[in-house]
C-alpha cells in the first residue's frame, strides 16, 4: 500500500496540519519507508487473538457521584491566548 503525495495531503487535512511542497515530498518518502517496515505485521497469524487495549486489565474506574472542588474559571482561562472575563475568545465562526 504505497502512499502518494495526495494521501499525505488528505491525512494532513484530517490532522489539521499544513505542509510545504518540500515537506510533503519528504513525508511521502519517509512514510513509505516506515509503512513498508510496519507491514511485516501482516505475516503474524492473529486469527482468534483478541486486541489488547489495557495492559493491566483494569476496568472502568467509578467513583461516588459527589461534588468535589474543580478548577475555577479564572484559573482555566489563565493560559488562554485570547479571552474575555469568562470565555475563551476565538475568531468569528458564523457569517464570515
Amino acid at each position: 500500500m504505497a502512499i502518494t503525495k495526495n494521501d499525505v495531503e488528505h491525512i494532513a487535512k484530517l490532522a489539521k496540519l499544513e505542509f510545504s511542497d518540500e515537506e510533503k515530498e519528504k513525508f511521502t518518502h519517509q512514510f513509505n519507508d516506515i509503512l513498508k517496515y510496519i507491514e511485516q505485521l501482516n505475516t503474524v497469524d492473529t486469527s482468534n487473538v483478541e486486541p489488547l487495549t489495557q495492559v493491566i486489565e483494569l476496568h472502568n474506574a467509578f467513583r461516588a457521584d459527589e461534588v468535589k472542588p474543580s478548577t475555577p474559571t479564572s484559573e482555566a482561562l489563565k493560559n488562554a491566548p485570547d479571552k474575555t472575563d469568562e470565555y475563551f475568545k476565538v475568531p468569528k465562526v458564523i457569517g464570515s
Partner: protein
Amino acid sequence: MVNLHEPYDLFREKLLNGTETVEQRTQAFLSEIIKRKELNAFLTVFEEEAMQRAKEIDTKIQNGTAGSLAGMIVAVKDVVCMKGKRTTCASKMLADYEAIYDATVVQRLNNADALFIGKTNMDEFAMGSSGENSAFGAVKNPVDETRVPGGSSSGSAVAVAAHLSTSSLGTDTGGSIRQPAGFCGIAGLKPTYGRVSRYGLVAYASSFDQIGPFAHSARDIARVLQVIAGYDECDSTSANIPVPNYLEAMNRNVKGLRIGMPKEYFPDALNSEIRSVLQKKIDLLKAHGAEIVEVSLPHSEYTIATYYILATAEASSNLARYDGARYGYRSRQANDLEQMYTKSRSEGFGEEVKRRIMLGTYVLSSGYYDAYYRKAQKVRRLIQKDFLDVFQHVDCLVTPIAPTTAFKIGEKVSDPLQMYLNDIYTVSANLAGIPGICVNAGADANGLPIGIQFLGKQFDEATILRVADFVESIH
C-alpha cells in the same frame, strides 16, 4: 566542602548529624547547573525558590520532622505539571504554558521533603530517542558532548549523570527513561503500567506512558519509587495494589533467582563490546548463585512496528487538544477558526511531533484502521503473552538496553526509521506493561557507558531493583 559526587546515603548521614545542610548542597547544585549550561539539560531552574525551600527543610531536620527524602534534590522532566511553573514539553506549542496544579508525583515528593531544583529539557512531547527534538535545542551527553544523551528524558538523565541533581523524574513510553540512563551511565526505572499516578503528566501515548526515576544507584531509585508509587484516585489507570518496601527487598543476594536471557535480545549481530560487558555481569550473577536460563520471546521482531502504530495513533488523538483555543500557541496568521486550528498546530509543533501525528492519523483513518491499528492491538496481545509465558519459568529477564552506545549528535536525524529501530530492546516493556530497569554495566573502548536492562513481572519492581542493586555492587 560539598561533594556533589558523594552518594545520597552518605550525604544524608552528614545531613542528619548536622555536618552539612540542604542549603549548602542546593547552592552547590545551582552553581554547577550554571557551570554546565552548555549541556542544555534544564529549561527552568528554581534558583530563589529552591534556596528558600532548602532552608525550610534544614529547619525540619533540626526539629526532627523531616520526611524520608529530605536532602534529595530532584529535577523534573518538563512534561510533568508543577503549579505556577512553566511546563513546556520542550515545544513551541507550550513555550509559555504555566501549569495550574501539581502532578500527584510532585505532591508526593514534596510531602516527603524532596526539593525541586528545576525542569529539564527533553524531546518535544516525549517523542524521540536522542534528545535532539527539542524546540529549545539538543541536550548533550556529559560523557562526550559530541554525542546524544538518549531520549526522550534527555535532560533528566543528564541532570543526574552530570551531578546537577541527586535524582530526577522522567517518563518512559517506549524506553525514554531506560535508554538515556544507559547512554549516560546511570540508573533509570520504568515502573509497571499503573504503578505510579500520571495525574498531571502531559499525555503522549496513554496506554504506554509511565513516570519513573533516574538516580546514581538502584537504591536511590527505590527511595524515590517508594514515595511516588501507589494508587491515586485522580488517575483512573493507576492500580490499587499495595506498594512493598523496596529497600528491604534489596538484600544483595541473588541465590536461587532464575534469570532469563531472551535469545532474540542477544542476536549474532549484537555489538561485541555490549555482548562481552553484559556477559561478564551475567557470569557474576551466575557465580553468586543465580540460575541463568535461555528463553524465547518469539514475537520480539514485531515490537517496533507494533509500538509505532499504537503510540502514534494514541499521540494523534491526545495531541488533538492543541487547537490554539484554550491554551498553548495561537498563530497570528489566522483569519477564521479553521485557520486558527491548522496554522497554530503547524507553526507550534516540531517536525517529529507532526510526523507522529500524521502517522497516527493515517493508521486510524477510514479504510486502514483494521489493517494497522486493530492488527497492532492483536500483535500486542501476543507480545504480552510471550512475557507472561516466560515469567512462568523465570523471575526476571536480562537484556541489552540499546543496540549501540550513545551515537553522534546529528547522526540519525535524517532517517526516522533508523531512529525508531534504536528502541528495539526497550519498547517491549511498554507494550507488555511490565517494569524495566537499566543500570550501568561498563563502558566501550571509547569510554561510552553500556547499560544492562532487567525486565520484571507486572508490579514486581522489587525483584528487578534487587538484581540491579546486586549488579551495581559486584565487579
